[in-house]
């Protein structure tokens, strides 16, 4: 099939999909056309900005060519408008209370000196990352692919803190609360609850990110890190940990960040699936940071496609790259493994031999054999969560 023919069929195919959209909902490529704003936020470079209150900042896709995302370009997402504008590090404490034998108030200094210090490279990704791929528009911020980043986090194990406090035998749930506040007293706090069994020794409370203090907008001075999980429970400015025996009904647990509890995790815009589940573990995904959509590349030049791949902690086995609209796939080179929760950097070089439009696609496969689906194979869901379609970058060979 000639390229022109391919485009013809794909136009017909997308027209067919559009007529279906009234009943089914369709999934395409996320919107990567947004530019960074003119306004730089504290400790950040200029980023794609959706809101100043609460701050919502997206990382430009070109940043995703290396395994760690720089702190000053790392994405930002808060839920409530009132964030403390000053933290006194000498008096800051984290409280551990509820069903524990000894209630604890631990200062930053004690945290850094009295417990074993650990590090983990882990991807922080919003469950709604790439939401703009869903049609009709799924409710929520219309992120492109940059509501994510990967950092080396340093801190102490949650397990070690809980051990020091001593869990009572009937403890079952742990609630995490940070310092962000709503405008109205009655608005529910952004509290997240996790079942104790879900929390393994990889869960840490971090004070350092890529060798520096956490940036203020990424949760300074302390943030919960749950490697492999979507970031909705990675509470920022963590100040309180409460152990309970019962699950408390909370808006941010019962309504937000949930997806249809069926095999395809999808539903129709007309009829949302009744039973839902939390989004939890991330699915396998890759993003191409270079080249970008609309780039011009030279005929017969050595083009190096670069990007990152990750999953929920099973580990990336390989990344495949196609430059012929998915007809053939070549295995990309993977950089050293920084651990199973980290971005895996990939690159693939090729020489474009034909002039004109060219599509570059990447597809990650993890150690369980799970691979990224083509975007049109992903079912619609009303929250626009967990998009992990194969990315298509359109370039022009000149």
């Amino acid at each position, binding site marked *: 099939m000639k390229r022109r023919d391919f485009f013809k069929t794909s136009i017909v195919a997308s027209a067919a999909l559009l007529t279906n959209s009234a009943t089914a909902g369709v999934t395409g490529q996320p919107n990567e056309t947004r530019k960074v*704003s003119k*306004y*730089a*936020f*504290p*400790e950040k470079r200029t980023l794609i*900005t*959706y*809101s*100043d*209150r*609460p*701050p*919502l900042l997206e990382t430009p896709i070109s940043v995703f060519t290396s395994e760690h995302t720089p702190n000053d370009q790392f994405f930002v997402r808060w839920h*409530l*408008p009132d*964030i403390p*504008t*000053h*933290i006194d*590090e000498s008096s800051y404490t984290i409280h551990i209370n509820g069903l524990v034998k000894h209630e604890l108030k631990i200062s930053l200094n004690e945290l850094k000196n009295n417990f074993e210090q650990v590090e983990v490279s882990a991807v922080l990704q919003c469950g709604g990352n790439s939401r703009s791929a869903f049609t009709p*528009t799924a*409710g929520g*911020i*219309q992120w492109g692919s940059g509501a994510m980043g990967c950092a080396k986090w340093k801190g102490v194990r949650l397990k070690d803190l809980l051990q020091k406090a001593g869990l009572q035998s009937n403890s079952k749930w742990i609630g995490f609360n940070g310092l962000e506040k*709503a*405008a*109205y007293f*009655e*608005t*529910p706090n952004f509290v997240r609850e996790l079942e104790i069994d879900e929390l393994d020794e990889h869960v840490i409370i971090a004070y*350092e990110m890529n*060798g*520096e*203090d956490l*940036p*203020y907008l990424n949760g*300074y*001075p302390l943030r919960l890190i749950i490697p492999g999980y979507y970031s909705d429970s990675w509470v920022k400015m963590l100040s309180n940990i409460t152990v309970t025996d019962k699950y408390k009904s909370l*808006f941010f647990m019962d*309504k937000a960040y949930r997806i249809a509890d069926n095999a395809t995790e999808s539903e129709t815009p007309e009829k949302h699936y009744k039973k839902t589940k939390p989004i939890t573990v991330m699915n396998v995904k890759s993003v191409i940071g270079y080249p970008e959509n609309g780039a011009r590349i030279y005929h017969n030049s050595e083009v190096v496609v670069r990007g990152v791949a990750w999953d929920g902690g099973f580990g990336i086995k390989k990344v495949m790259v196609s430059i012929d609209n998915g007809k053939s796939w070549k295995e990309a080179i993977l950089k050293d493994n920084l651990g199973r929760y980290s971005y895996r950097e990939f690159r693939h070089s090729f020489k474009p031999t034909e002039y004109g439009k060219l599509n570059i696609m990447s597809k990650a496969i993890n150690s369980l054999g799970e691979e990224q689906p083509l975007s049109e194979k992903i079912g619609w869901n009303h929250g626009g969560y967990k998009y992990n379609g194969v990315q298509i970058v359109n370039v022009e060979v000149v």
Partner: protein
Amino acid sequence: MKKIILLSVLAFSTLFAQVKTDIQVPYMPYEIKLGKGFDAVQANCLMCHSFGYITNQGPQPRIFWREKIMKMINAFKSPMSKEDIKTVEDYLFEHYGNGKEE
């Protein structure tokens, strides 16, 4: 030797707070459409979030906006009056609607 000492001091100092003074989150101007009901939008919506939350949703049917308003009231406890609910819904649908009721 001097150089090495200086470097290590610098490296160490990055571990101290970068937030020594108050941090100012910039205010951004948003292009928002003016029209009937805008006063109610300004009075109610801006209490908790910027106009970015509205303009970044894309064109939506009336029911989408109605459900968003009800979420703000029921889940986030916005004290919006009954009259304002209708006013804000009409404004959002007129300026950020897709023409469809559902």
